[in-house]
Each structure stands twice: as structure tokens, then as C-alpha cells.
């Protein structure tokens, strides 16, 4: 007897769908549980915390809005790629598939800028009563490290994670402009012994950033995975169009389902992290 797998292309007469489509939906169900668990953890941690920063005060809403637009558009191009195959227009498929990949890459580039902004943004907690605290006028200041004048004039190239990483135990720190202004105050010299804690706005800074980086990071990994799959079907995988077009269309549909799910996750992530 043949080992051919039944219903791998044609829809099953009872369920109405082929194997792969059922499979991808089951996979998405488990993804819902994964992100559901993470969202629940977020709610639990947020309700249990004494104070929670408003996302809009620290995160970059314009960039995220741009990314939202990009992802929604990429869903449209994705569905168009599939529809082109349905209408037997392979050339159009290639065009839309390429557009989808470019949009996805665009999303990642914007994300990289957003992450970069955070990773080079620092917060210093100064020692109570120290001279530096008097000079800064507050115990907690945020800003960036002035690399040009850091230490003894030499540039700090390494990534500073905490005050233990300082060259000469000193940094030149430029505080953020006060609210409503765009002028950076003058740089101040801070020594390691002036600081209780020096940290960049990375995942370890507080639970808000922990949630932000974990959720967007995991989403980003999903986007990257999507890009790999999309590229595969654009280049080597598309040979199947000539031998078995129906199966190929089915594969693109499954890819599209996954891609839509990834975009949908972002549409929930954006308001949760940035707006609420």
C-alpha cells in the first residue's frame, strides 16, 4: 500500500480543511497559551507592584506607531501574496511576498532603533547627601553618558552595565532635558562612590522594562522566524509552484496564518505596553 499521506493537500471531507491548516491552527492555539501566560504574568506583576510607570512616559510612541502601521500593512501584502497564487499570478505573488519581507525587516530595524535608545539611556541613583546629589538637585537622574568626555578624555567604548564597569571609576553624565524643554543641561562628573546604582534602561532596570523587553523580544523572535519562512518560500521553496501549485498555495496560506497571528500579537502588545 502507498505511504501517501491522505488529505495533505485536498480538504478532508468532514473537517473541510487539509492537514497542514489544522496543524498550523493547533500551533497557533498553543501560541495563544504562550502569550496568554505572559500577558497574565504581566497583569499579576503589575497589580502586585506599588507603582507602575506609564508606558508613554518612557517608551517611544511615534516609533511604535510606525511599527504598527508597518505590521498591519505587511498583513495586507501577505494576504495579497496568497490571493495572487489563488488567482494564478505567480509574478504578483513574488512582488507581494518581497514587500512583506521588506516590511518585516523594516519593523525589525525600527525595533533596533527603539532598543538602542533604551540601552544607551541611563539612570543613576546618587548617594544621599553626596556632593553629586547636591549638584544634580535630585537623587535619581536619567540621561546618557557623554562618551566624548568620559573618564580621562578617552572614549568609553564598552557597554556600561553598572558602576563596576566604569573606567577610572568616573563618568561624565548628561542629564535628560527637563520636561517641556529640549536643552540638555551641562554634563556633570560622577564618581563611582557617588552612585548607589547605575543602570541602563535594560530589562533588569525594573519589572516594567523586564516585561517590555521580554514581551517585545519574544515577539521580535517570532517576526524573525516569520522572515526566515517568508524568504524560504520566496526563493528556494517557490520551485514547488511548478510541480505542485495547490500544495504551494496551501503552504503560503499557513505562512500567512502565522504571520497574521504575529501581527495580531503586536496589536495587543502595543496598547498594553505603550498606552495603558
Amino acid at each position, binding site marked *: 500500500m502507498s505511504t501517501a499521506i491522505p488529505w495533505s493537500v485536498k*480538504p478532508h471531507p468532514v473537517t*473541510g*480543511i487539509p492537514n497542514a*491548516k489544522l496543524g498550523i*491552527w493547533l500551533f497557533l492555539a498553543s501560541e495563544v497559551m504562550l502569550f496568554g501566560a505572559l500577558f497574565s504574568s504581566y497583569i499579576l506583576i503589575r497589580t502586585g507592584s506599588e507603582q507602575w510607570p506609564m508606558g*508613554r512616559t518612557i517608551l517611544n*510612541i*511615534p516609533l511604535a*506607531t510606525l511599527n*504598527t*502601521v508597518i505590521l*498591519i500593512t505587511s*498583513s*495586507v501584502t501577505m*494576504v495579497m501574496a*496568497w*490571493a495572487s497564487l*489563488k488567482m494564478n499570478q505567480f509574478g504578483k505573488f513574488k512582488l507581494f511576498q518581497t514587500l512583506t519581507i521588506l516590511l518585516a525587516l523594516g519593523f525589525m530595524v525600527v525595533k533596533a532603533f527603539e532598543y538602542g535608545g533604551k540601552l544607551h539611556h541611563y539612570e543613576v541613583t546618587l548617594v544621599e547627601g553626596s556632593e553629586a546629589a547636591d549638584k544634580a538637585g535630585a537623587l535619581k537622574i536619567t540621561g546618557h553618558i557623554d562618551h566624548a568626555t568620559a573618564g580621562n578624555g578617552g572614549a568609553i567604548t564598552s557597554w556600561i552595565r553598572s558602576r563596576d564597569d566604569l573606567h577610572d571609576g568616573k563618568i561624565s553624565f548628561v542629564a535628560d532635558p527637563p520636561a517641556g524643554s529640549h536643552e540638555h543641561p551641562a554634563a556633570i562628573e560622577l564618581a563611582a562612590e557617588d552612585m548607589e546604582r547605575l543602570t541602563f534602561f535594560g530589562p533588569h532596570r525594573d519589572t516594567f522594562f523586564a516585561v517590555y523587553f521580554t514581551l517585545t523580544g519574544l515577539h521580535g523572535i517570532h517576526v524573525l522566524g516569520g522572515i526566515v519562512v517568508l524568504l524560504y518560500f520566496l526563493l528556494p521553496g517557490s520551485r514547488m509552484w511548478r510541480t505542485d501549485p495547490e500544495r504551494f498555495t496551501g503552504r503560503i*496560506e499557513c505562512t*500567512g*496564518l502565522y504571520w*497574521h497571528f504575529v*501581527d*495580531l500579537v503586536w*496589536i495587543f502588545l*502595543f*496598547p498594553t505596553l505603550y*498606552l495603558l
Partner: protein
Amino acid sequence: MSLKAFHIFFILVSTAFALGFGGWALREYARDGGLGMLATGAGSCLSSVALAVYGVWFLRKLKHVSYL
């Protein structure tokens, strides 16, 4: 559920999101001012309309594709 059905669902969610985001931005504008927020709010509300229009167009275009 086919990609067509999921896409329609996705567009519905996106429309609702755009409307919500627009409302949020306009509220921010009402509270703090700032033309950026006004533009964002107006733009987002407009995109929600655009998304709805696109959704209808999409439904027509893929009339013959199954929802399963």
C-alpha cells in the same frame, strides 16, 4: 478557518485598535495639548475608516474563496 477569514478578523481588530488609539491620542491632546497628539489622533481615526473600507474591498475581491 482560512487565511481569508483570519484576515477579515485581523482587519476588524485593526480597525477597532485604530479607533481606540485615535481616541486615546485625542484624549491626551485634550489633556496636555500638543499638535503631535492631535495629528496622531486624527490620523489614527482616519486610518480606521480606511481599514474598514479596505475590508469591504477585500471581501468583494475574494468573494469566491472559502472561509474554511
